[in-house]
């Protein structure tokens, strides 16, 4: 298969979380993932995108969130980035149940970690955050654990 790249940039509005989720669902369907995996991709993307809007931009409109997809023979790479407030301590932020907002569960990164094959978070205070996730395609081998 030829390498495929898709980039969606969108306003920092809550309603765009659903749009980003539908986009990853179509790409997952295109790649012929099992329905379960597609649901997991949707959750991972929703968490990353809503973090960018809610935390990165403090829920304010007028900013831009970027979602980049790169598909090659082996993997689907997803990058979600914002130019928002950044995360002072990434290791701490990724701890289960850690949240800077007492109303929230602090499970976003936990879902991304458990649903994706790789997760990297790059962040700099006042510069922004980039979340990179990889889902392996396992095109040939069928993993029985799925």
């Amino acid at each position, binding site marked *: 298969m030829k390498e495929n790249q898709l980039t969606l940039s969108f306003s920092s509005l809550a309603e765009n979380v*659903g749009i980003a*989720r*539908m986009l990853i*669902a*179509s790409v997952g369907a*295109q790649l012929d993932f099992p*329905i379960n995996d597609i649901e997991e991709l949707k959750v991972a993307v929703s968490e990353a995108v809503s973090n960018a809007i809610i935390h990165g931009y403090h829920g304010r409109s007028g900013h831009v969130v970027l979602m980049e997809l790169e598909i090659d023979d082996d993997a689907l790479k997803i990058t979600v980035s914002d130019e928002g407030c950044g995360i002072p301590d990434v290791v701490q932020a990724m701890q289960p149940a850690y949240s800077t907002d007492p109303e929230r569960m602090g499970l976003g990164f936990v879902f991304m970690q458990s649903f994706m094959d790789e997760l990297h978070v790059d962040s700099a205070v006042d510069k922004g955050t980039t979340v990179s996730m990889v889902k392996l395609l396992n095109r040939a081998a069928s993993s029985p654990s799925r």
Partner: protein
Amino acid sequence: IGEIRRFLRDDHPVKVPRSYKELVYRVNRTREQLAATLGREPTIGEIAAEIGVEREDIVSALEAVQSPTSIYDTLYQ
């Protein structure tokens, strides 16, 4: 039309889960019922609320089961 038909076929070569077909059936029926009571075409949100599913589910189901016939009807209504 051949072009559109080709796209539809190529994009969805196989596998339409039964539940999608059922959902599309319910969507079409609900759409007719609501159109009769409202006196206008219902929106996708009105149909979703009536059935009790998400709009997203309707969008996915319509795309998955969309047949050349249905798009043909759309074009030549």
